[in-house]
């Protein structure tokens, strides 16, 4: 286990995405369950991958949100992230970090 990370959980999120005329889907915004909105600055990579950490498979987007890179999975028709549950904090503060 990575230091500071107690576990990862599968967190389904609302995503605003653009589907272009070729059918290519690009995520633009991730809406976190508490109302925070993260703008996707850049999609760095897209591959079909399974998430061994939290279970599930689909299109895995490596996205940059500010300075942070994280994976965003498109498990059609839903999107999920591998949410970090911090080890030390007693109150769970979800973070969208890879």
């Amino acid at each position, binding site marked *: 286990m990575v230091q500071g990370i107690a576990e990862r959980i599968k967190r389904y999120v609302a995503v605003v995405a653009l589907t272009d005329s070729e059918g290519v889907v690009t995520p633009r915004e991730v809406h976190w369950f508490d109302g925070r909105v993260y703008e996707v600055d850049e999609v760095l990579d897209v591959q079909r991958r399974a998430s061994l950490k939290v279970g599930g*498979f689909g299109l895995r987007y490596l996205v940059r949100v500010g300075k942070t890179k994280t994976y965003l999975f498109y498990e059609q028709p839903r999107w999920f992230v591998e949410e970090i549950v911090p080890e030390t904090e007693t109150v769970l503060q979800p973070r969208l970090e890879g």
Partner: protein
Amino acid sequence: MRPDDRHILHIDMNCFYAAVECLHRPEIRGRPVAVGGHEELRHGIVLAKNLLAKHAGVKTGEALWEARRKCPELVVVPPNYRLYQECSRRARMIYYDYSPCVEPFGLDEAWVDVSGSLHLFGMDADLVCREVSERVKAELGLTVSVGHSWNKVFAKFGSDYRKPDAITHVTRENYRTVVWSAPVQELLYVGPATRRKLHAVGIETIGQLAETDASVMRSLLGKVGEVLRVFARGEDASKVKEFDAAANDVGHVIKSIGNGLTAPHDLVCATDVKALVYLLAESVAQRLRECSLRATVVAVHVRDAGLSSYSRQAALDTATCLTAEIARAAFGLIARAEPLDGTRRLRSLGVRAAGLVRSDAPVQLDVFGDAAHRLDLECLEGAIDALRARFGNRCVRRATAISDEAMAGFDIKADNVIHPVGLFNP
């Protein structure tokens, strides 16, 4: 391998159901896992297990209580066929990147003929095998064992030879040591009964079977004997069929359509039996209509509480795809064979439609029959099918089928799963 040899892969997803469950439920990884039916509905057997459960002695098909006795820490999870079908579909999409000839053998196995695309990989079959294996692992999180050979039977043997997550090449150079030294029951289509017959004449290995004279095999096992000898000699020339998703995920000519169910409680009276027969007939008839087919034969399979079973079948006067006609014929067959007065307890029933003809085939009208009324009924059922397609199979139900509370919630058609088809198909 000879230059003109085909290159056929047989890809087998290891411990498929259990592996899919472990992927989607990280919390059960590293523990012995079995996928088991619903015990309260009396479907409580092991459908699949992972390697840890296998090492603890758990066997597919045994009762869950037996499995738990062998392995008290066993985690039993209910099956999720939708998910397994989706995984299977995605795996096939990967195989399609290598060849259009993909022939599924159940949800977890498939033959892929890569002869036509091997030149793209420098004629290196091992490279294709590794790439397919790695892609399934990365994209679906599942391991596969791959067998590669010049015929389907040896390719299948190869995928069973070493597992999990392994690649076996059965070539013309090594098949005598790899295949021929193996016990005869490891050959496709040699089950316990055939093995006993072969054992009686001293045939213990696949090599001995291959070297037995064709006439001896024929006298011993009939036509199948010769086929098995061809299999053992690596002379099977059957093609890998191109998969046709439109053909109801089967890819072969459909010879019969049936559904069966172990009831949540024993069936003792006519009302109980009728409720289940109508539930099953509803699914069978709906599937017939989806495939634009009609049945000329209805068959039933009955299993009593003592687990002994029998089948009965009857020809229909007119080919039909109407639920009520199939259900009446099926119920009639059971009523003739069973007292239905509470003296015999029935555990499970199956209804099967056979003797299939296309729905646009000409129909011989009956002078005394009411063809117009039957046409009306077909239109009615077509309308109900359309409603079910939009709002789910349970949106319109027959009163008979919901007379039994324990079974009223069942959706037989949606839960229907197509199991492996035989190799001997046209």
